[in-house]
């Protein structure tokens, strides 16, 4: 049984002209989406919006799977978005933040939900089930005693604070720096003296970001960062 809260997130800037009408790009659609996902996107009232919601769900699930397993590749069609959510009375589906769906990858079920605005989609997900076993309540960020905080800022909005040298080691752009600063702001809700958001270089890629202190992950916390176009987004889960 998996007792650690594991989250992921992904933001899409819908004002980017490249995102518009992407559902008409047959090769992109075939490469990324399963036949059922393609049908759902093309039948949707707003196909472009549905496409990027589905994309962000896959990306979110990929981030979570990468935290749980070594060597996961982002083979898009292997992350299957399933809008049929069993157990509609669960905390996730009943969330005030809106409708939730499942993304399946191997034996992992990842539950995601979206905040959708006129010009962005922000997807947040959690591990819901592994090898047929639901995550215990203490690892569910949408139930007590967990607290999930998320934020989004535009590039015109200032973000205070400074990163540590360990945090800077995996920063590769202004956007990735801002995503960390945003996550640090969210982490202020907890008394986490000396905590950092770091990534480790593993074999041929950076590990997902973790909340760490003295180079070791802080138990009970998880973090996810995303940026696209004008937006950066972060999500942090920790004790309530």
């Amino acid at each position, binding site marked *: 049984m998996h007792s650690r809260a594991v989250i992921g997130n992904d933001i899409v800037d819908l004002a980017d002209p490249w995102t518009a009408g992407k559902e008409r790009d047959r090769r992109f659609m075939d490469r990324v989406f399963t036949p059922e996902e393609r049908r759902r996107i093309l039948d949707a009232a707003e196909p472009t919006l549905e496409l990027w919601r589905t994309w962000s769900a896959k990306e979110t699930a990929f981030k979570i799977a990468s935290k749980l397993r070594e060597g996961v590749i982002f*083979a*898009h069609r292997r992350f299957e978005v399933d809008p049929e959510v069993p157990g509609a009375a669960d905390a996730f589906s009943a969330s005030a933040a809106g409708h939730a769906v499942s993304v399946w990858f191997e034996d992992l079920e990842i539950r995601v939900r979206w905040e959708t605005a006129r010009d962005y989609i922000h997807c947040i997900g959690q591990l819901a089930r592994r090898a047929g076993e639901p995550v215990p309540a203490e690892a569910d960020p949408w139930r007590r005693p967990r607290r999930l905080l998320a934020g989004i800022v535009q590039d015109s909005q200032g973000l205070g604070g400074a990163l540590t040298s360990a945090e800077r080691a995996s920063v590769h752009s202004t956007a990735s720096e801002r995503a960390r600063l945003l996550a640090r702001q969210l982490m202020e809700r907890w008394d986490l003296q000396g905590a950092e958001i770091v990534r480790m270089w593993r074999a041929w890629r950076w590990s997902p970001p973790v909340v760490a202190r003295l180079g070791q992950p802080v138990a009970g916390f998880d973090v996810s960062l995303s940026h696209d176009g004008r937006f950066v987004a972060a999500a942090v889960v920790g004790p309530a």
Partner: protein
Amino acid sequence: MDNAAAFAKVVSIIKPFVKNQDAFAQPTDGTRIIEDLGVNSARLVDIILAFEDEFGIEVDDDSADRVRTLGDAVQMILRKTAPAH
């Protein structure tokens, strides 16, 4: 096709997708496509599809996932376009 020719084609294919044009001013084998050039993962799909069209190759998911740098892209393309023995 030699390494230099493949590199030049890779650079021309990726150029329209690059957000950070400053980092693209002096591209090298070690230039990272996502981190240094600011290409997002969705656009990376279009880049892979463009490689398939330009070089007449098929790029499976595993091969695509291993393309981190311009040099990775060049080596993958050279492997896939090498004459069979």
